[in-house]
């Protein structure tokens, strides 16, 4: 199994989820994060003074998936999340050793 971590632009969430739904990927977990990267931060101005907001709001998606579909999932996310602009984010893949569904105790890919 694979553990996929995707950092995306907040407003792409709906698009990504719709795309994943079509792959029958049922579960995912979303966290609000702040990202720092090549994309330049925003400037807010208060009473004439500029405030540099160097961290930008992003969403982190975490999905546990069967190893077989991992590549497909990564591609799908990439397509749905991409706008071609800097700051679109990244997708990372890690190995997942095991998974358990709390409610039933099912393990492995059954738990996903």
């Amino acid at each position: 199994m694979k553990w996929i971590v995707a950092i995306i632009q907040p407003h792409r969430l709906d698009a990504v989820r719709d795309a994943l739904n079509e792959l029958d990927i049922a579960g995912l977990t979303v966290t609000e994060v702040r990202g720092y990267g090549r994309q330049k931060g925003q400037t807010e101005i208060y009473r004439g003074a500029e405030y540099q907001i160097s961290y930008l709001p992003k969403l982190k998606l975490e999905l546990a998936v069967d190893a077989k579909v991992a590549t497909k999932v990564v591609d799908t996310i990439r397509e749905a999340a991409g706008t071609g602009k800097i700051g679109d984010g990244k997708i990372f893949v890690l190995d997942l050793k095991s998974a358990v569904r709390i409610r039933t105790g099912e393990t492995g890919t059954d738990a996903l």
Partner: protein
Amino acid sequence: MVDSGDTAWILTSTALVLFMTLPGLALFYAGLVQSKNILSVLMQCVAIACLASVLWVVVGYSLAFTGGNALVGGLSKAFLTGVSRDGVVDGTGIPETLFIMFQMTFAIITPALILGAYVERIKFSFVMLFSGLWLLVVYAPVTHWVWGGGWLADMGVLDFAGGIVVHVTAGVSAAVVVWKLGARPGFPDQVRPPHAPWLVMVGASMLWVGWFGFNAGSALAAGTDASMAMLVTHLSACVASLVWMGIEWMKFGKPSLVGLVTGTIAGLATITPASGFVGPAGGICLGFVGGFLCYFAVDFVKSRCKLDDSLDVLAVHGVGGATGTLLAAVFVSTSFGGVGFAEGATMGSQFGVQVLGVVATIVWSAAASLLLLKIVQAICGLRVSDDDVIEGLDFTSHGEKGYHL
């Protein structure tokens, strides 16, 4: 004799002016700081209000409003002895107890204004001790000068609702405290933006509404003076807001909410000393000039003077109040729709008096504040530790957190 209508209006005005501080000013300031310091700002406001009220009754009112000499009042009404339940203020239709209460709300907001300068790094014990002493040593005497029959009153200075008494004293003292206190870490480049601009707007709105009590209430009667004062107050606020918005729109392409309502406060502070003397044209002009000057004063104080007057007390209140005081000498003229000069006064002579009033108040506020600061600093210190600044005063000084969402 008590006039029920006048009394009704001053009772209402008293409620409005208290509302300006609690929660108006408190929220205005609280929205501008970081979320970890919100409670400390609110706490300072409430605690100052309580302390100032008690001191006012104990001795402040007497120092400000009893005979005494040209510089300060006497102690004949300390602890409100000699104030009778049925006494009426000479020349008005309101009870003296009400006048004490109405003026108390001014004595509350003035030291509270100062706190905008020193937030996010001050010791709470300093705030309490300094504010209390300041009320007695700076505020009460200056009030006596201007409204209590002191030397400036004798010279015929114009200060309807507190340009000198409230805004100049507070603005100057704020700058003095900041000068000795030092800046917040990261100032001026890495200071964090206001944590809740929406709260700033809420506070500003409450200040605006409450200011009707402040200025129109200062007529001490419900009649044409109060009505015109309300109208010009409102106009000045509106025009200054639009000016500030316009400057930002041109300069940055985006007008901001914090800017807009800062303009509002600038306009209100500017019209205050003139509000009972000028007509609509005066209100509009004062708003225009006030909005403009305060906008550039903010930058001047922070970038040029390198003073971390965190919430711009000097630049908005001090500059606005002084500007309005000086221009009152112009717009009081009947040619601009004002009530006209006092007998024997001319625009030139009046302007001279206004300048003198402002300068004397600046000098006294600065000198006395510096002295008090040194004394209080020796007693209980001035600034919390850097670690506490980083962790935030809410938890380190008050053991609470503003938000548990």
